[in-house]
């Protein structure tokens, strides 16, 4: 087992742990929900990213075979994290923020949580 590999892997692991911890810490530290939303979507992403890199490095450098699994998980998380954050934000906005407290949209239509899309006025019933 090459020594630099060990150091590299360990470093990524420690980094991952730190970012993961900070991300979750944001969850309890920050005051309002919208702020808290920033923690996990970023800090934790890097945390888990580091962990995945550590894992790949570990398997390649120490176990001696290439592992693509981690890439898949990364792909998955990168695809899903914004959507989740978007939904959580909307869930929060609809329950706690009035339309007038938000900046205007710059077009005729309001934000989609409050306003129907164009041509949708006839939908009710």
């Amino acid at each position: 087992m090459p020594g630099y590999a060990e150091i590299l892997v360990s470093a990524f692991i420690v980094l991952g742990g730190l970012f993961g911890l900070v991300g979750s810490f944001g969850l309890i530290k920050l005051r309002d929900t919208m702020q808290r939303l920033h923690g996990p979507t970023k800090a934790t992403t890097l945390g888990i990213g580091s962990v995945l890199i550590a894992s790949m490095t570990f398997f390649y450098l120490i176990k001696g075979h290439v592992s693509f699994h981690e890439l898949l998980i990364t792909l998955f998380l990168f695809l899903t994290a914004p959507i989740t954050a978007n939904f959580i934000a909307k869930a929060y906005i609809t329950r706690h923020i009035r339309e007038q407290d938000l900046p205007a949209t710059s077009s005729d239509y309001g934000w989609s949580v409050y306003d129907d899309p164009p041509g949708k006025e006839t939908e009710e019933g």
Partner: protein
Amino acid sequence: MITLALLFAFVCFGLGLLFCLWRITIGPDNADRILALDTMVINVIALLVLYGVWKGTAIYFEASMLVAMVGFVSSVAYCRFILRGDIIE
């Protein structure tokens, strides 16, 4: 060294889980709970991956993959319930 690093990371993500638990328990909003659950999912994935590194096996990879997938789906479902009531209207 790796073992030590792993131990450190385990403690970090473990603490992270406890923070999430705190948020889930006290809320105050359901959006916070969903957020915490989602974060918890990410922490668990990290733990699973690290566990695989520790044990030197890739056998737990499917679990992390699946956790990532269902974590997303259930977070969206919870949010949709709050947003629309019917999640697959």
